[in-house]
C-alpha cells in the first residue's frame, strides 16, 4: 500500500472560501479559512454589521431511542430540563432524537461515552456521528436576525428564540437546524444542514446579506470575537 499524503478533511465550503480569497489553517485535521481580508476588518464587520463563518468542523452526533434522554442525563449528569432547553450543546429534535454539538474533535469521545452508557443501560439506543454530513455556517453580528428573517419564517427575537436553543425549519427552501449561539452580547446563529447544500445556503446568505454589508470571516477573527 502506498499513500504519501496525510489525510486532510475539507469542508463543503472549501471551494467557496478559495473563491473568496481565504488563506487556510488547520484545526483537528480540518482545513478551514483563517483570514479572508484582515482579521481587524472581519472582527469589525461581525461586531458592527454581519459576518458568515464556516464552522463545519464542530462535532455533530445524533442519538436516537426512546430512552435517549435518560442516557444523556446519566452520561452527562444533567437534569431533564437542561436537555430540553438545549444546554450543553444538546438539542432535542424529536421526542426520541437528539442532536449533540461538540467542539471540533470532541465528538469521538462523546460518542464513545454515550455508547458505553447505553450499552450498560441495555437500552436500544443508536449514536451516529454526522459531522461529515452537515455543513455548519455561523451567522454573526447585529444584523443576523434581519438577515435570517429574509430567508426563514421563524421568529428570531431573543424572547422567542433564546440563546442556546435550537429549532428546525425551512431556510431558503432547505431543511436546517438553527441554533442560537450568541457570542457574548453579539447575536449569532449556527445554520446546520446537509453538506451538499452548504455552498448553496452560503451563497443565498451572502446574497441576502449584501444590503447589510455581510463579509466572510475566518478562524482568526472568530477566536478574537470569542476572546472579547
Amino acid at each position: 500500500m502506498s499513500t504519501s499524503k496525510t489525510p486532510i478533511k475539507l469542508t463543503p465550503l472549501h471551494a467557496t472560501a478559495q473563491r473568496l480569497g481565504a488563506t487556510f489553517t488547520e484545526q483537528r485535521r480540518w482545513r478551514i479559512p483563517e483570514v479572508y481580508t484582515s482579521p481587524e476588518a472581519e472582527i469589525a464587520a461581525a461586531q458592527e454589521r454581519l459576518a458568515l463563518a464556516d464552522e463545519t468542523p464542530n462535532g455533530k452526533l445524533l442519538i436516537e431511542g426512546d430512552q435517549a434522554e435518560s442516557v444523556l442525563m446519566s452520561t452527562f449528569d444533567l437534569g431533564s430540563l437542561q436537555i430540553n432547553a438545549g444546554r450543553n450543546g444538546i438539542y432535542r429534535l424529536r421526542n426520541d432524537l437528539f442532536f449533540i454539538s461538540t467542539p471540533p474533535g470532541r465528538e469521538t469521545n462523546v460518542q464513545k461515552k454515550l455508547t458505553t452508557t447505553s450499552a450498560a443501560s441495555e437500552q436500544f439506543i443508536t449514536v451516529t456521528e454526522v459531522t461529515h454530513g452537515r455543513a455548519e455556517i455561523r451567522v454573526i453580528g447585529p444584523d443576523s436576525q434581519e438577515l435570517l428573517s429574509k430567508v426563514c419564517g421563524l421568529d428570531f427575537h431573543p424572547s422567542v428564540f433564546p440563546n442556546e436553543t435550537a429549532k428546525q425549519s425551512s431556510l431558503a427552501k432547505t431543511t436546517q437546524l438553527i441554533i442560537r449561539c450568541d457570542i457574548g452580547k453579539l447575536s449569532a446563529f449556527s445554520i446546520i444542514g446537509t453538506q451538499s447544500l452548504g455552498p448553496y445556503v452560503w451563497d443565498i446568505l451572502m446574497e441576502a446579506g449584501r444590503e447589510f454589508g455581510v463579509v466572510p470571516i475566518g478562524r482568526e477573527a472568530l477566536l478574537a470575537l470569542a476572546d472579547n
Partner: protein
Amino acid sequence: MRTEQDTLTIMPNRLQAKQGEVIDRSTTIRFTFDGREYSAHPGDTVASALTAAGVKVLSRSFKYHRPRGLLCCAGHCPNCLVQIGDEPNVRACTRPVEAGMEVQAQNVWPSLKRDLLSLTELGSRFMPVGFYYKTFIRPQKLWPLYEHTLRHAAGLGEAHIDTPPGEFDKQYLHTDVVVAGGGPAGISAALTAAEAGAQVLLFDENPTLGGHLRFTIPLESPSSTEVSKDSPELLEAVNQQPNITVFTDTSVLGWYQDNWLCAVKGTRLLKIRTKSMVVATGAYEMPLIFDNNDLPGVMLGGAVQRLVHLFGVLPGKQVVIVTANEDGWDLAADLHSLGVNVAAIVDEREPNACASPYRDGLVNAGVPVFYRHIILEAIGSSAVRGVMIARLDEHSKISRVTTQSLQCDLIVTSIGWTPATELAYMAGGKSEYNSDRAEILPVSTPPGIYVVGRAAGIHVVDSQITEAQQAGSNAAAFAGFGEFDEAAAQSPGVIEPRRTSDRVCVPGNKKRFVCYCEDVTDQDVETAIAEGYDSIELLKRYSTISMGPCQGAMCSMNTIHLCARANGSTVQETGTTTARPPITPVTLGALAGQNMEPVQITPIHQWHLDHSADMMVAGLWLRPNHYGNPVAEALCVRNRVGLIDVSPLGKLQLTGPGVPELLERIYINQWRNLRAGRVRYGVMCNDEGVVLNDGVCAHLRDDTWYMTTTSTGATTVFEWLQWWLQSGWGEGVHLTDLTDNYSAFNVAGPQSRAVLEKLTDRNLANKAFPYMRIRSARIAGVLCRLLRIGFTGELSYEVHCPSGYAVHVWEALMDAGREFGIAPFGVEAQRILRLEKGHIIVGQDTDAMSDPLSANMAWAVKLDKPDFLGKPSLMRIFAEGPKQLLVGFKMVEPDVVPAEGLQIVVPEMDGQLEIIGWVTSSRFSPTLEEVIGLCWLPTEIASQNGTSFSIRMDGHIAEARVHHGAFYDPDGERLRM
C-alpha cells in the same frame, strides 16, 4: 441659476412655495415623457411633475382608448398607469420622479396624442359588456389572429423578454400588533398599543405617515379640530416610541388565516405574523358617474389637495367643485385661500343642509354657489373646457330646462367615501349598509381585529384619535399587554354627519364610466343585469367590474348602488363582493422573491469543474455528465479502469433488532437470511405493486444495515421508510440518513483491484473479498466502507468515505490509477455501460405503472414471504400475467440510434400506425459496436427473442429486434473476476 420666472415657464402650474410640501425647489431634474423632456423637483412624483408642466393626458383607457388624466392621485385608480423604462404599470402619481427617467404612455398606438385605437369607441355598440364571451369564438381556427389583435388593442403595458431579472426578496416579520394605515387613527392606535408594551408594526402606503393630515390643511380652522397641530406631534411621538417599527411606502396586500399578513414594500414582499391587527386603512373617495366623467380634468377632491399641498401644483386655473358634503366646501375654501379661481360650487343639497364654517366667507368673497344643482356633463374632447349643470326639482329629479354650462378647466368632485375595509372583511369582519350615512360600514370583527378611522366611517379627527386609542389599547391587550378597555366595548360609537351621497349616477346620453379600469359604463351594467347577471358576484364576473388594477377601489360601491337600483332592491340586500388578496397590484417578481433554487453538489464538484466536466442536473444534484468524450470513458472502464463520483446515491443506516423484519416488508425479495458482510440487490414496490426504487443493502454487522438507493430517490425512500416506521413498523428500528455523511466513488474496470491495492492493506483477492460483499478498509489512510458491487458490468468497488475526506480519497485513487490509465467517467458513460449489461434505471425505464414482473424483475419477487408491500397486487399481477414487458433490443441498422421516448408501431389495415410500445433507453454501444436499447413491448412480441418490430423515427420507420438477457458478458464473469 434658475429664476422663479424660468420655473413658471417650464412648470406653469407650480404654485408658490409653502409649508408642508415635499419637493426640494432648490434643485431641478429632467426626465422624459413620451420622448419629450420635462423638468421636476426632487420629491415630485412623475404625475405631479407632468401636471406642473401642464400635461393633462397621461394614459389611454383599456378598451376604448379614451384619454385619461389624474383622478385620485393616491394610487387608487388606473388612470395614471405608465411604463417607466422596462417596468410596466407604474402609477405615475405615486412613483417619485428621478433624473433621466424615461416615462412612456402605455396601451397607445401609435401615440398618446393620436391613438388610432380610440376609433374602437365608434364600434362600441358592437362591443357590449361581455362581448368577448359571445364573439371571437368562431371560426375556432381564427382564434390566434383574434388573440393577437385583442392583446394588441387592450392591455396593461409590455413586459420585455430581454429585461434583466430584477432583484426581489422577502422578509418574515413577527409582532404583537399590526396597524395597517398611518393616518391620525393608525398612529394613535399604534402609540397606545406600544405604550402598553406591545411590539407594533405600523404600515402605510405613502412615503410618510400622517394620512390625510398631510394635505388637508384647515385655514383659520374654525372647526373643532386643529388637525395641522396634531400631525407633527403624532409623528414625533411615533419617532420616540421604540416599540413601533414604521414601514412607509408599504401596501398591506391581504390577510390570511391566523393573522398572517402579506405586504409589499418596493421589491420586497413582507410576510407578517401578528397577534392582533388594527385596520386604519382610511377610505377611498368615490367618483360620480355622469356624462364624460372620465375626461382629463375631472378629479377627486383629495387628488387636488394632494397636488396642491404636497407638490405645490395646481391642476387647473378655473375650478368647479361638485359636492354633496362639507369636504367640498373645505376644498373650496382651501383653494380660494390660495388665490385659485373657484368658478362655482355645485352642491346637490339645500342651502340649510350645508353646515360648512367656510360658507359665508366664500359667498361673501363672491364665489358662485349652486345649491340643489347637479353636474350633467364634463365638456371637452381631450380635457375639460367646461361643465354642464342643472337644477334638481322638489322630487330630486333633474330639471333639464334649467341646464346651463359654466366655463372651467378643472372639475373636482367631492361626493363621498367608501371605507377601505378589505383587510377586516378578509379576516371575517361583517358589514352593513348604513342608509343614514350611505356607506357600508363594519359592524363586527373577529377577536383581535379592530377597525378605526375613516375605515370605520369616522371622519372627525378628534373622534378618530379617541376611538383609535381604545382600539390600540385593546389590540395590545389581545396580544397580552395591559387590560381590555371596557369603555370601548360599551361605547355607542361615533355619530357622524352624512358625508356620502347616494346619488352616484346622473343619467345622460354620453359615456358614463362606472369602472375606469375595465371601461365599463352604467349602460353596460344595466345590460348585464338585463341579461340575467343580476347578483353582484355574477355581475362582477360577467362585466369584469372591480377586476382591474384598482381592484374595485373606484367602482365597487357605485356598482352596488347601480345593481340595487336596477334590481329594485336595497344596497343591504345587494351586498358586496368578496374581498380577496391582493388589495393592490403586486409584481410577480415580488411574489417570487430572491431566486432560491436549492442545488446539491458533491465534495468533488470543484475537481470536476477543474477537469472540464460537462455538468448535468439530476434531481437537485449537479453531476458530471462527461469529461469530453463519454465513449472513450466507457471504453476506458471496459479495458482499463475508470472512476465515477456516485456520491448522490442515497445511503441510509438502519439499526436495531427489527431491521430484518422491516426489510422483509419493504423489499419484494428475501433479507432475513443475509449474513453480515454481504450485500444484496433489492427492489421496493409501493402497495399497488409498482416499482418504487432499487439499490443494494448491506448487512454491516449484528443489528446494523446500510441501504443505498437511487440518487434521485434518496429523499423519497427515506420518507417512505419514515412513514412506515411511524405507522407501526418502527419497533426495534432506528433510521438515519447518511447520504451526505459518505461520499461514494465507483472504481470500475479490470484494473480496479490493482488500483485499490496500492491504497489499502485490506486483502482484496477474489476469495477474501468476493462479489456482493462489504468490508471496512482504510483507503489512503481513511477508514471507508468498501462494497464490491457494480453497475457497469466490470470488476468494481464502491468506496464510501466520510465526506470531509472525499477530495483526499478521490485524488489518491486518481494518483494510484495513473499507471493503469485511469480516467474519470460521467453519467453518460455509466449509462452506456449499464445498458450494455441490460440494467434498468428505475424512473427512466420504469414509470408509475411498472410492476416488477413486467419490468423483468420477476426473479426478485418472493411471493412466499408472509407479507411485504405490494404483495396482494403482485399476486394478482402474477396470476393474470403481464400484458407488456420491458425488454432489450438491437437496431438492425448499426448507425440508427432511436431517441428515448420514441413510439413502437405496427401498421393497421387503414394504413395508420398503431402504437404498441416505446423506447426507454438507447445508445450506441462502443463495446459491441451496435445500437442497443430497452423498450416496452406487448408480451407476445417481447417474449420471443429476435422478433423484429418497428420504431417510428423522425420521418421514417426503423427496424429493431428483441434481445433477451444482457448484451455484454451475459453470465457476469467479469464481475466475479
